[in-house]
């Protein structure tokens, strides 16, 4: 699949010329991207660290995971919108930038992983982790910890690849 025409199209849109014209606004959008990351990744690591029993051990995990959801979605919307705005200004650079592609692949993986395995496994966490009372369909503790570690790894790699676009 040849994606370069897509970036050529993006580069020619009014959004791209707008984003390139106003440097002050662009820097604000960059700040929004970072602040959205704090909300998105912050809430995800709260859940992951909880399931690793590193923070808030003994506090019912369902309550924590449930509360993080809304903020994860708000963060996602903010980061995708600000990200597209930023991308439009440097579209032709990104078309050939491997860190950008690693980041997009990681992001797709992170979202799918979060909605499938992470959510399914966390809701079946055993009593020693969840503190929500015995369940009939509980999984082994190591499964929960593996999923939590994988989640942390995915999201930090997305963020690291994002920062590295600028250095490359």
């Amino acid at each position, binding site marked *: 699949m040849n994606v370069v025409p897509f970036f050529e199209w993006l580069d020619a849109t009014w959004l791209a010329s707008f984003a390139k014209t106003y*440097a*002050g606004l662009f*820097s*604000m959008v*960059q*700040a929004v991207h*970072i*602040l959205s*990351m*704090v*909300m998105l*990744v*912050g*809430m995800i*690591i*709260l859940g992951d*660290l909880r399931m690793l029993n*590193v*923070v*808030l051990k003994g*506090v019912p995990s369902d*309550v*924590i995971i449930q*509360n993080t959801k*809304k*903020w994860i979605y708000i963060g996602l919307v903010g980061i995708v919108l600000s990200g597209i705005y930023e991308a439009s200004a440097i579209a032709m650079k990104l078309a050939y930038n491997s860190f950008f592609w690693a980041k997009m692949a990681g992001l797709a993986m992170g979202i799918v992983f979060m909605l499938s395995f992470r959510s399914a496994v966390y809701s079946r966490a055993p009593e020693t982790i969840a503190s929500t009372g015995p369940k009939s369909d509980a999984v082994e503790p190591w499964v929960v910890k593996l999923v939590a570690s994988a989640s942390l790894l995915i999201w*930090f790699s997305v*963020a*690291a690849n994002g*920062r*590295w676009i600028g*250095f490359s």
Partner: protein
Amino acid sequence: MLNELLFEFATWLDGFQASTNLHEALYAYGWVEATHVLTLTLFLGMLLVIDLRLLGVAFKELPASTLMERLDKPMMIGFVVMIISGILLYFAIPVRSTQSIWFRIKVVLLIAAGINALLIRNMTRSADLAWDNDPVPPKRIRVGAGLSLSLWALVVVCGRNMAYDWWDCHKEMPYFMYWAAGCVNELAAFE
């Protein structure tokens, strides 16, 4: 006076070989800056959880004190990493950072956010937390939490804007800006 002292200090740091090495290294500087940015998720992430609870908009089922006491350690670990990586970034580019208006505003905001955090800490000593289980804490607590989030967001804006050279000393600027950014050489030209 203060501007001269800061400039001399920065020039002195700039003389270290380690400062030049860090600045010019292919990967080291990048990793320090990446650490600075990634650690925001831990430090400000935990702070966000606590402040959203204090605002009464999230985690309402949990006592406020539980989150404040038990997320304090991970948050402070993040804070220490922010400070260490920040000092290293400053050490790599000392003169330009010292004369950056954004860096100066950032330091002032950091101090303000720190004082605000201490005030919140004082208002939330566990002994008199009559509202600990209330979904929505009292107004003064909510004001403190809102202020905290705003100040930290502004710190992020200032940190991000340091990368731009709009108000660097070599630019044509009004006297006030040279003074605020501490451009000692440019100021001397006005004498």
